[in-house]
């Protein structure tokens, strides 16, 4: 009998634990299946086209403010009064007179709390007017005495968004409910009413677009015990992310642009090894906590060729300020040592040369949220895999940095499978290295007629190493790289490395020399690792931009114009 009682007591606990576990698994699946903005198709709708046309029209106007429509005569007069006042329009243009995107979000009878009681006059009517600047995220709030046409209150609020007007609410619902990816997730074509919060029937779910700093709202669709969040970016008129959550307390209370990005990247790329088979290659890749996107156990035609390649550090120094710079790790967005972190998953795309697909590319981007403002950074890692067995390890800075006197030095760790010998071209013949050492590729370094500088010999042949001297059609100005070769050791970079070197040395002391000095070891048939540290100088001169980015106001909102500086060697196989 006591056993029966014991089991009866345990049942609720077992049920609770299994429900809890089910909820955790379900939450993890929801995260993995979520979609980040660029993965979501664009919604096609006449309402969106009308909105774009309206924005274009007002961005060409002397007063770049989209007015509110369907107003009473008195409200129209109030709006006209506001749109003629320079103080009300203070933030509608930048300091060069270029138009920002602005819109009147609301004109309401003022509430008692809106007016200073000392100024209140009950013989007149007061209206509260709300103007929103999409670029600066500034709300201009005014209270107007409609009888005497004067302001009784006018103030500006940073990082503040008033309630959106009905027209934008309908637009957000249209963008979400007519989107193919949303429909596919739901399994049905939702009605407009399905997008509203069930408890209010009128409001859209609140959300944030913390990375783009755009105005975003979240039409949310309920299906059974789950909710599908569709974050709509009302500046770009696109969906910034889609994610399922559990309804109730087991799900997050707020889904935002950043949370969708960070959770998805972490679940799918930081916590998992991804496998890709394409064009005779098999590549395993994942995001690390401090060494960027690492490719491991790579095969070509079923033969192992690469053990591990990763980007350990970015060193950035500024020549006009001694010792000033940064030594940054790149990697996962949270629970990592990254100073510049991944804001989107890696992408795989075709590698096209002279209009032919010659292989594929894996790209990974990292950024600081404030980019492209000064002292914020954006980096790209790129691995190129060619159908003929070549591969290229590259990276680029996309600005902007803390000045136009910046020098960038990315540190690659390249471990080929069974790499046993290393040779350097001296102009006439290949000279074998017998122990750990480093060398610098300069403008006078002799190259073979094919532009090769090194060879790495493996059990199955090996690779020629062709440094970048601007020959790869990517507008690069060359690598000028330090190359180091060390014996492969577990505690010398096989696991995640903390920052390996300081920001601002201009000589060979970029970090890998630690594994060579003070006593370089003879190779003695041990497996070898190559470290490659190119150097790039940024350039902000008009028409010559390099490692640079500019914010440009286009149609009332800022977009980034980028000038990447790609560096990195090509590896060419030989038998």
């Amino acid at each position, binding site marked *: 009998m006591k056993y029966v009682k014991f089991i009866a007591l345990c049942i609720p606990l077992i049920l609770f634990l299994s429900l809890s576990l089910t909820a955790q698994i379900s939450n993890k699946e929801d995260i993995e299946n979520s979609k980040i903005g660029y993965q979501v198709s664009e919604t096609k709708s006449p309402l969106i086209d009308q909105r774009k046309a309206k924005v274009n029209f007002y961005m060409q106007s002397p007063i770049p403010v989209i007015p509110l429509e369907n107003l009473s005569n008195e409200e129209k007069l109030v709006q006209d009064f506001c749109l003629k006042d320079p103080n009300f329009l203070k933030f509608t243009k930048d300091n060069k007179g270029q138009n920002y995107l602005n819109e009147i979000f609301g004109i309401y009878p003022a509430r008692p709390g809106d007016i200073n009681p000392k100024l209140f006059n009950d013989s007149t009517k007061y209206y509260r007017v709300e103007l929103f600047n999409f670029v600066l995220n500034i709300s201009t709030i005014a209270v107007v005495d409609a009888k005497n046409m004067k302001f009784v209150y006018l103030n500006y609020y940073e*990082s503040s968004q008033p309630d959106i007007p009905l027209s934008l609410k309908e637009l957000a619902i249209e963008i979400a409910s007519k989107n193919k990816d949303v429909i596919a997730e739901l399994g049905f074509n939702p009605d407009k009413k399905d997008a509203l919060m069930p408890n209010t029937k009128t409001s859209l779910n*609140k959300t*944030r677009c*913390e990375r783009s700093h755009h105005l975003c709202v979240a039409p949310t669709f309920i299906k059974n015990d789950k909710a599908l969040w569709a974050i709509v970016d009302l500046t770009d008129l696109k969906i910034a992310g889609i994610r399922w959550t559990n309804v109730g307390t087991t799900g997050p*209370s*707020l889904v*935002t642009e950043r*949370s969708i990005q*960070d959770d998805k990247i*972490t679940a799918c790329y930081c916590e998992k090894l991804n496998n890709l088979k394409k064009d005779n290659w098999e590549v395993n890749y994942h995001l690390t*906590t*401090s060494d960027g996107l690492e490719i491991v156990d790579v095969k070509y035609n079923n033969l192992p060729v690469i053990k591990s390649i990763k980007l350990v550090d970015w060193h950035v120094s500024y020549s006009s*300020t001694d010792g*000033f710079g*940064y*030594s*940054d*790790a790149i990697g*996962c*967005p*949270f*629970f*990592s*040592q*990254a*100073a*510049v*972190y991944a804001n989107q998953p890696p992408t795989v795309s075709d590698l096209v040369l002279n209009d032919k697909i010659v292989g594929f590319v894996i790209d990974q981007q990292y950024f*600081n*949220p*404030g980019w492209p*403002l*000064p*002292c*914020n*950074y954006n980096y790209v890692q790129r691995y190129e895999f060619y159908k003929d067995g070549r591969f290229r390890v590259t990276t680029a800075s996309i600005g902007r940095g803390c000045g136009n006197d910046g020098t960038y030095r990315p540190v690659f760790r390249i471990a080929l499978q069974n790499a046993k010998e290393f040779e350097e071209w001296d102009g006439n013949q290949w000279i074998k290295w017998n122990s750990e050492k480093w060398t610098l590729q300069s403008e006078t370094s002799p190259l073979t007629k094919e532009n090769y500088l090194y060879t790495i010999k493996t059990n199955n042949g090996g690779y020629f190493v062709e440094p970048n001297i601007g020959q790869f059609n990517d507008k690069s100005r060359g690598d000028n790289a330090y190359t180091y070769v060390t014996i492969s050791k577990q505690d010398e970079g096989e*696991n*995640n490395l*903390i*920052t390996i070197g*300081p920001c601002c040395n201009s000589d060979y002391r970029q970090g890998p020399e630690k594994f060579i000095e003070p006593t370089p070891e003879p190779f003695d048939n041990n497996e070898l690792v190559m470290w490659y540290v190119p150097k790039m100088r940024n350039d902000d001169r008009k028409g010559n931009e390099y490692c640079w980015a500019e914010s440009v106001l286009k149609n009332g909102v800022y977009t980034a114009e980028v000038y990447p500086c790609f560096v990195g060697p090509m590896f060419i196989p030989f038998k």
Partner: protein
Amino acid sequence: MKYLYFLLLLIPNLASSQIYSGNFCFKYPNFVQKEGYEMNRSAFSTSENRQKGLYLIQYSLDRKKIEKKFHPNSWESAGYLGGMIYDRIGNLYTFSAPHVNLIDNPPTKNNNIYIVDNQTAELSLWKQLPITTKDFDENPFGVMAMTYFCTGNCIYASTISGSKRYEENGKVYCIDEKTKELKDSIQNFDGFGLCVISINGKFSLLMGNCRNSNLYSIDLNENGKFIGKPTVIYSIENVGPRGDDKIRKLVYNNKDNTLTINTLEFNYNLAAILNRPESVIKIKYDLANKKWDRVL
């Protein structure tokens, strides 16, 4: 004489106030005056732009420019540093805090608490809190905040060393200020900002958490040891431009009886952001209804 003056000011204030901060007895270091600095227009700082370590900075009389800086060699020896507290004698305490990378702040030293001697101004290691992991991949951080409790003779320190993505392994320690013994600890709690307050004679430790936007409270006995478990007493979720900031610093202001909360976007990474994403909010305790309300 100046101490009598201080007591004459403090006692009526404490007697009339039902809420006051637990570090009421703290004192600024004696070396400030010895080095020719005036505390009423000087400040200690560990967050000078592009500068490592601790600085004492004196501003001009009109507060418009920096007049001079004090920065002996030992103040740079521990790398980048975090917030500061003072004890009843005037010793200053601070802790290792990595900034952008780990070159000057290796993870094995991020549980270090340093002391700046009240008389000599020398910075030295005061206490290394236990490091319970060798794996710093997912989390290079250690000590996150400290506070001083006069009555309990305790220095409290929150540390998240050893905490991982799916394991909250942080601790909050009560450290005896004289013996440096670890008197008590809260386990499996990734504490952030700390502050001791007394409400109607009962002391409690207020704490932020690095994983959420909640403000927690735990009761203290007269020796500074913990009673019970942390409970949520307020939340800053959805407050401010980011909506999920963490509570980095807590200061109770005895003059206006408000709690100032400095918030920060924190995601267990070393993200280098030029304009630190932080906000400041104030809350006040409603004695009648026993709850905290925002002061706008």
